[in-house]
């Protein structure tokens, strides 16, 4: 079980690993009560949306866009098909929270989607599930069968006249499909290549119909928020950073796993929950929001709290809440080389600055790592990334450039050492030992 702890747990409260994901368990925890109430009392759509706005829930998929505001963009009274799509294509390196939500609390996602559908006037929905988590996809299908049999999804739900059909779509290995318009293309049975925006999905989405896309954690939070009230959820966190959030902690910590904590909790508390640094070693750097977020030196991170605004102030992004912790045995050049390879490999190739730029960045970092770097390479890297940022169709271009920019900025000396001495500042055997097999507690 990778749900290892919480402070004021909301989404993860009362879960018992693999033994409490079924419909009856969710109902015993108070599940589907909000959907029932909304439908029985025919609560107006605006009222639901305004409660979500009050909670200041910000999208948990990476961009942090306010969810209530996003819902209000939908032309909800326009006749015709509309869709709600859940983004469970979790592929941002370091992120593994949506998998645990789907594994241990799948019905919260289903209820959240049904409520979202009601609020935005959608009658169809898909949950796009990451290709590599086939077992989770199967479980979600089972949960859907349960919900359908109990009448929580389908036609004329609970006799209210509200229809909502929901299905799961299984990805098959493409990071770019996490980008919302690539994801829509993928559901349509095409290559996952992002679309130009505008038009935005709220006006032209799946099959050309108005569509709202939200992350798994965002949607799973909805029933809980409505139950406790938007204001109470907001107050769990801090102003402009409502509620609790799941953080996936990976890398050089003793107990890697998911932790649900109120936004605004100090990073040092989270690190402590994760057992502290492995082998008692010194913290060197942290990527606080998934591999696309800029890296931050360890000492800066130790003084930061875990919320959108504080992490932005520290020079990075909260992103998906994936906290990658690196200790003093880490070679920053080698780490960046692996990340740059990832973006090069996953670029969909549609726009030239991204296709060529990711290839160049990987080539340059690769040659520095392998002792073939030249003194002018660091400026060249900054040049290349400058030509990518802000010039691409989707945010993958920036996602590829930000790690390069921040690694070189904060650890320039290590890159220079590599170029001059043709080897790592951190001896290879130290690196190898530091990243070795780890025996879990």
């Amino acid at each position, binding site marked *: 079980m990778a749900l290892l702890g919480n402070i004021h747990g909301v989404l993860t409260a009362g879960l018992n690993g693999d033994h409490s994901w079924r419909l009856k368990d969710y109902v015993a925890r108070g599940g589907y009560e909000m959907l029932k109430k909304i439908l029985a009392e025919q609560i107006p759509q605006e009222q639901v949306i305004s409660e979500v706005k009050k909670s200041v829930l910000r999208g948990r998929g990476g961009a942090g866009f306010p969810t209530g505001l996003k819902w209000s963009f939908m032309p909800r009274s326009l006749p015709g098909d509309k869709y709600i799509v859940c983004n469970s294509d979790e592929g941002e390196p370091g992120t*593994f929270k949506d998998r645990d939500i789907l594994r241990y609390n799948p019905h919260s996602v289903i209820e959240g989607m049904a409520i979202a559908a009601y609020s935005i006037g959608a009658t169809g929905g898909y949950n796009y599930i990451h290709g*590599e988590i086939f077992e989770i996809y199967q479980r979600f299908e089972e949960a859907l069968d349960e919900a359908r049999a109990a009448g929580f999804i389908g036609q004329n739900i609970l006799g209210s006249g509200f229809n909502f059909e929901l299905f*799961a*779509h*299984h*990805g098959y290995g493409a990071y770019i499909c996490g980008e919302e318009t690539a994801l829509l293309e993928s559901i349509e049975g095409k290559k996952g290549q992002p679309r130009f925006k505008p038009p935005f999905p709220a006006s032209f989405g799946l099959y050309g119909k108005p569509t709202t896309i939200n992350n798994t954690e965002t949607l799973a939070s909805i029933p809980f928020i409505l139950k406790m009230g938007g204001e109470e959820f907001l107050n769990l966190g801090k102003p402009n950073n409502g509620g609790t959030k799941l953080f996936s902690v990976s890398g050089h910590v003793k107990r890697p796993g998911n932790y649900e904590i109120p936004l605004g909790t100090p990073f040092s508390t989270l690190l402590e929950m994760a057992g502290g640094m492995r082998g008692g070693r010194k913290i060197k750097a942290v990527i606080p929001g998934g591999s696309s977020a800029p890296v931050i030196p360890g000492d800066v991170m130790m003084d930061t709290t875990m919320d959108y605004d504080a992490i932005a102030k520290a020079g990075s992004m909260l992103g998906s809440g994936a906290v990658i912790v690196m200790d003093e045995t880490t070679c920053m050049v080698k780490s960046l080389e692996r990340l740059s390879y990832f973006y090069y490999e996953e670029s969909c190739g549609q726009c030239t600055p991204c296709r060529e730029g990711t290839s160049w960045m990987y080539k340059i970092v690769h040659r520095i790592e392998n002792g073939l770097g030249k003194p002018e390479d660091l400026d060249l890297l900054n040049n290349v990334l400058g030509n990518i940022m802000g010039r691409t169709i989707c945010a993958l271009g920036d996602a590829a450039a930000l790690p390069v920019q921040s690694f070189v900025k904060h650890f320039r000396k290590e890159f220079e050492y590599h170029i001059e001495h043709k080897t790592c500042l951190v001896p290879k055997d130290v690196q190898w030992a530091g*990243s070795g097999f780890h025996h879990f507690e």
Partner: protein
Amino acid sequence: MLSAESLKRFDREVAKYPAEQKQSAVMACLAIAQDEKGWLAPETVEFVANYLGMPPVAAWEVATFYSMYELKPVGKHKLTVCTNLPCALSGAYHAVEYLRQKLGIGPGETTPDGKFTVKEGECQGACGDAPVLLLNNHRMCGRMTPEQIDRLLEECK
């Protein structure tokens, strides 16, 4: 071309989408076809395309775009080890090296007896359980220490 069982699964997928959007089922149908055949030969892709009433070239584009489709035969047991950074910090490359010792092959290779293929993969969304590997696209195996790898290889014999 494909078993009745697979075709039944095709129809279950097609039913998820609006009647005029059968192409939406292409990813699932290619995956089902691959489950049965082990890999996707051009004629298999063409069969899926015809079944869904879409141009074969459009199905081929999908088969080549997504990394979990195999366009060449692979070993009976495909082990995709995630080596992205979070996993690399917790033993991913050690797992790759250990597999090399045990099987005599590195990433991208298949054992001469056709039993095992080892691949390097990208983040599988399970970084907390590193090292992780995916067996035949279906089974996620986490915390793959040498003992766990031994156990898995024994099971696959």
